């Protein structure tokens, strides 16, 4: 009887657990972006040339980044199997595009075929855009 009650409560909690993990992931993401901004602009606008604070800000960024990774793993675990499949395919596509596109881009830069400098930010944008497109296509495919 108690087991049945607990089971019913667990079922009701699944959606709440899933939403809670999404909110937690969003909080970690926003914190990580804020930590990047602090590490990047802190030396210019807040503490100047204090190396200790700069290193501290970078370590803080890495620590929050680690939390973001853990939160993302927890979020993925609470997704159902179809959503996990969509995520897996999107991550595979964005990783592939990131590696292939990134190396191609670096080669173009090294050969001086393109005039602009290859920067890591361009690669991050490429991965993010390809991931979002792959997620969108994945959801559309199963609708």
């Amino acid at each position, binding site marked *: 009887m108690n087991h049945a009650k607990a089971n019913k409560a667990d079922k*009701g909690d699944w959606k709440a657990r899933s939403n809670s993990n999404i909110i937690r992931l969003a909080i970690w993401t926003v914190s990580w972006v804020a930590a990047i901004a602090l590490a990047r602009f802190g030396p210019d606008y807040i503490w100047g040339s204090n190396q200790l604070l700069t290193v501290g800000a970078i370590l803080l960024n890495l620590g929050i980044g680690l939390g973001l990774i853990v939160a993302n793993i927890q979020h993925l675990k609470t997704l*159902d*199997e*179809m*959503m996990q499949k969509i995520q897996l395919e999107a991550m595979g596509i964005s990783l592939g595009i990131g590696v292939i596109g990134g190396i191609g881009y670096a080669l173009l830069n090294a050969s001086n075929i393109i005039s602009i400098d290859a920067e890591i930010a361009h690669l991050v944008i490429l991965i993010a855009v390809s991931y979002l497109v792959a997620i969108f296509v994945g*959801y559309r*495919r*199963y609708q």
Partner: protein
Amino acid sequence: MKNRLKVLRAERDLTQADLATKLEVSRQTINAIETGKFDPSLPLAFKIARLFEKSIEDIFQGEATIQ
């Protein structure tokens, strides 16, 4: 893979959202299973079968037979 999920759900007057809550999956996943666009894993198929008190074969029909 074909299935009778939509029929069984309608017989019990359940919405896709109701069934999704009972199975701990999203409503989109229920819709994708019903339209045959997504085949559930064996554990989820067992869960569906238990919920409707049927055997897996009563709900899901494979399209090919093994010779």
